[in-house]
């Protein structure tokens, strides 16, 4: 027992590896939120009039809303006037952002190097193109030209608004309208940067696309906006990663990710979320309030969400799928780890509209310390979704006697040919398993890492290989020694 307590202490004092700050001159606009700020953001980004109109409509709608109440989250009060809505660390001369690596502040390059995201293409991970976003601005997108040869557009959303207005106009807000929820409205009004991906008909994207989000500046909010359009018969695998420095105050990250999947197309979206989770007393940390949704428009389309959530003080996100195309298939694979005072409320919504649509939900929650970890999900089968099929499995693992693990699945079935199955279990790591490992010479600390990784394997296996390794490490680090 003594040994275990030591162990718990050690973990509680585990340092957040990515908690450093970058000393770079950053242009930050005044704190506060009003129409002028929305206009200023739009102007800073040199946006066309229609984009400003979109933002203003969303902003005016947001003003009519009240922040929702939280079922299972203890949310600190967010003062929307105490946040700066735009921070630009690139110090650029013109509004089009740096074009080559040479123009980027070496400090920024160093930062991304340190995060393991080299922005020089020659150093890049094999087969991965990166869009690197710090605070409100995309710093650089690699392999843009290589991809463009195949007709693939991969750039920051700011650039896409300027360079590909027709595509953006057609799809932006088509999956997550600004009226969707409180944070969707806020994001639509003040969104800063994120990635835009367009895969044309019949093209299989030859490399992994990835966006790396970094919050650096103090007292700013990050409002990521990502839009992925995968046209007929196309394929793309996309990964996002995120980190932030250690700060005493909470930082707000309110993102929207929209994915459109057309006929026979397939999108894989993976997230390794490692925002700063706050310290061991629950001070600071990122409030991660995200609306992610994919629209499987075309017949036989496929969308797979995979997420490894280890960071953030509060995570509120439900990557969802609207299965409209007949025979479309959706998957949600999630590992959410919470420690100390972290709170995670995550899950998915599978909305079956088309015939013979299939969805799979595999969720693994791991709670330690004094954290609360909830799965919340909805499976809805519409009247016309003949032959719809869903399988959900939501397991929770408790490490310690002061944390909580909760499961709130909702199933609304309006079709008698549907088959929907849900199962969930909650348990702890068994003493027998630990003892067995100990007897074979594996110390408890390693044994826990081993068992947790085994527990999460089904999900980790869904990640692209390079990231699976990273995620595995992350899991062990987040949890080392949390056995109660």
């Amino acid at each position, binding site marked *: 027992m003594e040994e275990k307590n030591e162990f718990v202490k050690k973990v509680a004092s585990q340092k957040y590896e990515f908690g450093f700050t970058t000393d770079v001159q950053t242009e930050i606009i005044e704190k506060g939120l009003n129409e002028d700020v929305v206009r200023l953001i739009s102007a800073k980004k040199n946006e066309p009039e229609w984009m400003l109109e979109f933002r203003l409509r969303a902003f005016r709608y947001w003003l009519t809303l009240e922040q929702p109440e939280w079922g299972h989250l203890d949310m600190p009060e967010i003062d929307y006037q105490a946040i700066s809505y735009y921070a630009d660390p690139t110090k650029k001369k013109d509004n089009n952002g740096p074009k080559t690596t040479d123009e980027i502040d070496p400090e920024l390059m160093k930062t991304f190097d340190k995060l393991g995201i080299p922005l020089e293409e020659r150093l890049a991970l094999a087969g991965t193109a990166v869009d690197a976003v710090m605070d409100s601005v995309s710093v650089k997108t690699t392999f843009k030209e290589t991809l463009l040869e195949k007709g693939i557009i991969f750039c920051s959303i700011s650039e896409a608004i300027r360079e590909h207005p027709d595509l953006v106009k057609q799809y932006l807000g088509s999956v997550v309208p600004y009226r969707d929820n409180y944070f969707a409205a806020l994001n639509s009004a003040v969104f800063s940067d994120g990635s835009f991906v367009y895969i044309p008909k019949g093209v299989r994207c030859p490399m992994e696309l990835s966006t790396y989000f970094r919050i650096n500046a103090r007292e700013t909010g990050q409002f990521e906006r990502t839009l992925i359009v995968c046209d007929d018969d196309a394929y793309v695998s996309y990964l996002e990663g995120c980190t932030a420095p250690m700060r005493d105050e909470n930082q707000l990250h309110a993102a929207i990710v929209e994915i459109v999947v057309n006929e026979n197309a397939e999108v894989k979206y993976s997230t390794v979320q490692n925002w700063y989770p706050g310290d061991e007393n629950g001070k600071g940390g990122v409030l991660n309030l995200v609306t992610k949704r994919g629209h499987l428009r075309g017949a036989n389309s496929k969308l797979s969400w995979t997420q490894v959530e280890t960071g953030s003080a509060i995570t509120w996100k439900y990557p969802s799928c609207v299965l409209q195309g007949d025979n479309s298939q959706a998957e949600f694979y999630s590992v959410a780890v919470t420690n100390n005072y972290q709170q995670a409320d995550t899950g998915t919504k599978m909305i079956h509209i088309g015939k013979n649509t299939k969805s799979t939900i595999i969720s693994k929650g791991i709670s330690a310390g004094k954290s609360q970890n909830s799965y919340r999900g909805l499976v809805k089968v519409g009247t016309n979704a003949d032959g719809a099929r869903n399988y959900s499995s939501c397991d929770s693992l*408790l490490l310690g006697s002061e944390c909580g693990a909760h*499961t*709130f699945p909702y199933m609304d*079935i309006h079709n*008698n040919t*549907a088959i929907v199955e849900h199962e969930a*279990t909650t348990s702890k790591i068994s003493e027998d398993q630990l003892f067995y490992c100990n007897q074979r010479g594996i110390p408890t600390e390693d044994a826990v890492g081993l068992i947790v990784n085994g527990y999460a394997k089904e999900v980790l296996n869904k990640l692209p290989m390079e990231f699976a390794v990273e995620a595995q490490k992350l899991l062990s680090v987040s949890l080392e020694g949390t056995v109660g």
Partner: protein
Amino acid sequence: MENLNSEKQYIDLYQSCSDIIAEHSSEVMNALRAEAFEKFCKNGFPTQKVERYKYTDVPEAFKPDYGLNIKRLNIPVNPADVFKCDVPNMSTLLYFVVNDEFYTKAMPKTGLPDGVIVGSLREASKLHPELVSKYYGKLADTNDSVTALNTMLAQDGLFVYVPKNVVLDKTLQVVNILRADVDLMSNRRVLIVLEESAQARILFCDHAADDRNFLTTQVIEVFAGENSSLDIYELEETHEKNTRFSNLYVSQQAYSNVLHDSITLYNGTTRNMADFNLDGQGAEIHSYGCAITDSSEHIDNNTVISHNVPNCQSDQLYKYVLDDKSVGAFAGLILVKKDAQKTVSQETNSNLCVSKEARMYTQPMLEIYADDVKCSHGSTVGQLDEMALFYMRQRGISEAEARRLLQNAFCSQAIEQIRLEPLRDRLHMLVDKRFRGELNKCGGCKGCK
């Protein structure tokens, strides 16, 4: 308040008639009315935005104008005439509650063991005010507006008291008869107290004797003392014009063992809420239910099993078969409090949608704050196994018969749990009749004829 219309008639009724209500009840029951009224006025009826009432439109159900028998006028009834569905091979002690009034004219002749009380709640609370007031209203939470309404309007009901170490061999069978010549609202109140090591089995049967619109609220409070054993079976066999709101509150002391089986065979709109509190170590709750619905029937079972202390066990099984345009809802929360270590809990809800228009909402939930637990839940919505159907047809069984056999088998799991063989057999038979569409021909209830 948006639903003011629904609430207003009850607020007006209470304000203008609280004297009459009190006059025909007892002091113990009257003592809680004012506070319940205050809460009811404050909270109003829950809308469907309230999580626990998501699936039933309460304001709508309470909107129509029903008569109430607050003056306790005598409603002529011959229970033996109304109630023919007795259970063969099971010798029970038979009691009747007509609407919300305990029926004193037909009591079993057999004497009860010393100290056991079974009878009118109103009369019991006059005869034993200390005993009843010790328990009455202690579990039922008037923050729930249906409970508040019941607390403010209920004038009588049933009281069951089993003293320490007393074992009731015979099952108490309580037949709730809905009987009226006008549309009627009843507010029935039930209090069940089992002292240490007491044992009892109670079977409630709901029947409607008239083809009228009925609205019933029922609040049952159950106190299961240390090492006691209690079975509660509730069987609803009413009709489509009946609306039932039943709130059951159970508190269990150490090593008590409670079984609750709620079977809805024929109904209109039914909303059953059950809160089980495991308050003493080693307590066990077995919560089962089965519903068979068709036409536009509505069944909503909402349960919370709260593990408040370590070393308790719970298991839960609810099964629905939904036909036509009927709607089913099940929400079951297993709550394991912080120190409730070594909790073992299992929850299953399976549903068959038999028709295109039937709808099912299911929501099994786990909320767990202790780490050394084994909890699981599962929920399914689907159809009959096509391969099993084919296998049976290959053996010459017609498709309709094969479906019926499989549906029976599906429901039988919830009936097999009944700890009383004759009742189990009787229910298997009733379920089978229900699937054959013969239940409404039993002649037992006028409404079904």
